[in-house]
Every structure is written in C-alpha cells, then in structure tokens.
C-alpha cells in the first residue's frame, strides 16, 4: 500500500508537507514528537482531512481507535455495535480475546481508561482489516499496555499505529519517523538508531540491550 504526496493545510499551517509513505503488512509504526503530523496523517487516511493533491492507495476495510473519544453513557455492547447492522456474534471472538465478556452489560462511561480503550480496540479488530490506532497505550497501565502489544503481535491484520512508545519498534514491521509534517525516515525498525531518534525528538535517546532485547531510553 502506498500514500503519495499528501499535502494538508490546517488553519493556514502546512501540517503534512508532501508526505509519501509505504505501508507493509503487520505493524506500521509512526513515530514523532507532538505536532509532527502523526494524527493528521491517520486522519488523512480515513478521509477526515482532505489532502491537496497526492494519492491514497489503501486497501481493505478500515477501522480506527482514536486517541480521544466521547465518554458515552451507553452499554459496552451498544458501543461495540454502534455504526453497523452487525450482530454481537461478530465481535465475541475479540471480546473474549481481550477478556471483555464481563463488561458487555456495563455502562461504557463507568469503565477505566484502559477498559474503554480495549473495548474500542476489540471493536476495531472485529470491523477492519486495516486497523488504525492513535496512541493506543497512552494513559494505560503496564498490564493493559501489554495487552495492546499482544494484540499487535498476534492478530494477523495490517496496523498503522501512531505512538510515543519507542518499545513498539520491537514488534513493528515498518517504521515511519515524522517531524514537522515531513517524513524523516522510513524503513525497517532494525535500521532505526540512536542518532535518528535523537534528531527526531531533539533530545538525547540511548539504545540499550537487555537479554538480547533492544530498548530505547530518553
């Protein structure tokens, strides 16, 4: 899949400046500091913001896990079923996969931040083959973050994930580094190094190896 020459202007500021990215199967990671255009890129993919020129060659049914959403006062089951004519059966495998069965009859607004996020993730997994996630682990505790990582590792779908968590590099199949509306680097996550990340975030980033796993520390 290919996104070519996206140009997006929001209130007279060029937020995406000629962004061309390739997308691979598996987890496509978008990294970058606040205001680098990550969310705008995701929104351009679903048609929420219009690009001046360029083209989107994106296949498959899209679904989206937003960074922010309304604290709807409705049952979890109604949140899952919202927007479609689908029946609950189509959601149950992912509901069970994320251990949400006991929440189905609970009021969505009374769930914890992590439980709400997992609900929206279960919905997105059931509805799309191209699952777009905007900061899926922000505000989540270690256990729930681990669940999100497990989803990205195990579920066989194409993911586009914008995040600040550099540890996602370990499970990604493709990495896109964005800064000030431009693509700084894209390629295999193995090729992402300290210098690149230091430049990306304008702050020193260190790479350490523990038990054969690579970790990045700011």
């Amino acid at each position, binding site marked *: 899949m290919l996104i070519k020459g996206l140009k997006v202007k929001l209130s007279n500021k060029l937020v995406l400046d000629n962004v061309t990215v390739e997308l691979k199967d598996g987890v496509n990671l978008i990294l970058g500091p606040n205001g680098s255009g990550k969310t705008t890129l995701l929104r351009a993919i679903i048609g929420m913001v219009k690009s001046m020129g360029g083209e989107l060659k994106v296949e498959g049914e899209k*679904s989206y896990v937003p960074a922010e*959403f309304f604290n*709807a006062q*409705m049952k979890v089951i*109604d*949140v899952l079923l*919202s*927007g479609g004519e689908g029946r609950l059966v189509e959601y149950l495998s992912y509901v069970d996969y994320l251990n949400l069965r006991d929440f189905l009859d609970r009021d969505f*607004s009374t769930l914890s931040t992590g439980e709400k996020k997992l609900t929206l993730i279960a919905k997105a997994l059931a*509805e799309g083959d191209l699952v777009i996630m905007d900061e899926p682990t922000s505000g989540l505790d270690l256990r729930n973050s681990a669940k999100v990582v497990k989803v990205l590792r195990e579920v066989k779908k194409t993911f586009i994930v914008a995040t600040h968590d550099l540890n996602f590099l370990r499970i990604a199949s493709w990495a896109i580094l964005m800064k000030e509306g431009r693509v700084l680097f894209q390629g295999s996550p193995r090729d992402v190094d300290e210098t690149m990340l230091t430049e990306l975030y304008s702050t020193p980033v260190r790479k350490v190896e523990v038990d054969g796993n690579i970790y990045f520390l700011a």
Partner: protein
Amino acid sequence: MAKAKAFFLSFLFSFLALSFLLATLFGSVYIPLGELFAPQGVYKEILLDIRLPTVVSAALIGASIAVSGAVLQLLLRNPIVDPYITGTASGGAFGAVLAYFLLAFGLPFSWVIYFSPLVAFVFALFSTLVTIAIGRRGGVYGIVVGGVVVSYLFSSLITIMLVLIELRFPQVPPLTFWLLGDVQVVGWEFVVTLALLVSILLSVGIAQARKIDLVSISDEMSYARGVNPSRFRVFWVVMISLVTAFIVSQVGIVGFVGIVVPHIIRKFAGGSATTLVPFSALLGASTLLLSNVVADGALGVKIPITPITAILAFPVIVCALVRGVANQGA
C-alpha cells in the same frame, strides 16, 4: 437484561395510556367518563373537534421534542441540550412572529398561517447553527451558553416585535401567552401534518440509531466506517429544526421536555439511541399530556405549558449538571 427492558417498555406504554385517558377527560371542560364512548351533543363537539385533536397533538409534540432532545444530546455530545436550549425554538418563534409582519404588506391573514411555519423553519435552522458554531469553541458548556445568548437575542427581538404588532395591528390576537406554549388545537388538519413529521423523525431516528451512537462516540471512528459525522449532524439539525419550527409556529415554545425525558430514560435503560429514541418518544408523549392537563385548566385557570415543564425539569437539570456533566470532566 432484556427482561428489564421489556418491563420498562410495558411500563412506558401503560403510563402513556393512562396519561392519554386523563388528558382526554380533564381540561378546560371536564368530559365525564360515560360520554367518552358514546359522546352526544356539546360533549361530542368538544371531544371530536377540540379535545382529541389537542390531546393527540400534545402526545405527538411531546414525543418529537423528546426524540429531538435525545438525538441532539448524542450528536452534540452534551447531556443537557434540547431544541429549547440550542435556541432552535426561540429562532423558530422569532420567524413565526416575523411572519405576522407580512400583514403590513396587505397579505390576507389566512396566508400568514401557512407562511409562518416556513419563516419559522429558516430562523430555527439559523439560530441552531449559530449556537453550534459558538459551542464548537466552547465545549459542553459553550453550547449551553451559546444557546442562552442566541435565545436571549431572539426573545428580545420577539418582545420588540410584539409591542409593534400590538400597536399597528390590534386585530391580531395577543401572542404573549402563545409564546410560552399553548397546546390547544382545533380540528385535524394540523394533527395530520404533525403526525407525518413525527413519524418521519421517529422512524429515521430508529433506523439510524446505531449510526447516531457511532457519531456520538468519535468522529474518527465514523469516518473510518464511511460516515461523514459533520454531514450527519447537519442532516439531523435540519430535520429537527423543521419539526421544531412547525410545532413552534402552531403552539409556541414548549421547553425542557427534551432534556428531562432522555435523562430519565438514560438512567433506567441506558443511553444508546436504539433505546433512547423510541423510549423517549413514549415518555415524552406522556410528559406533555400530563403537563397539558395542568396547563389546560385543571387548576381552574389556563396556564402556558413551558412554566409547567420548566418546574418539572428543574430538579433533573440540576442533577445532570451536578452529577452527569461534572463526572464527565468536561
């Protein structure tokens, strides 16, 4: 869970039947129970030409305002809006009163009757869009404050116009009472049109309930599923303005039913549009029927209906403000 819902639904239906019966019996004239099934003489005339059209109208108006409130609350992500708060009703009332100025152009009085819903619609739509535009910048309270400001503007304009109308066209009946809601319908013409509008509102609301839920949760999620949430909101605002304007131009402003009713339903049956829309229609109809019993002279004097619904709404709105909205951290 489904059992509790079915129980609640049957309760709402019985409550509606009871309200309907009470509203048919009581009013400015009491119709004895015996006359209900075989009405004769003056009772027959009152029952068929005034009481029944009034009662059916009240039920339909209550249903449509409650449904409008429920849908607006979801789409605008704000638990304390309804067509009254969003300025829709005030704008509509302004348009309806403005239509009377057509008398100045020598148009016959009967034309005004047909023209006023149209002018009302234009201004209802305009005022709602202004309120939403203000609310976009101000969040949950922005829309309420915007609505208050817009309502205030149009109420002021209405007051000025009423003074002018009274001076220049003494033949026009006083409109002050009507402005605060006067559900008194003679004949069936209005009822038929209203029934048509309400059934469209209700059936589209039920058919699109899942979509309404989605748009209420997230714009991004809506776009990803091929629903343009902005266009969807505009569609609903136009439809609600149309129905509200038609109602306002005939019976004046009926406030607060649209806030109270969905709030109660949300408490007992959850806030998904799949239940909120149909259940609000039932409870909204009952609420307005009972309010109209009081308004239509059960206390020995006719009172406009909005003061009554406002008193009913007060505790519920305070409760929503203190608990509901505060809890959402908005």
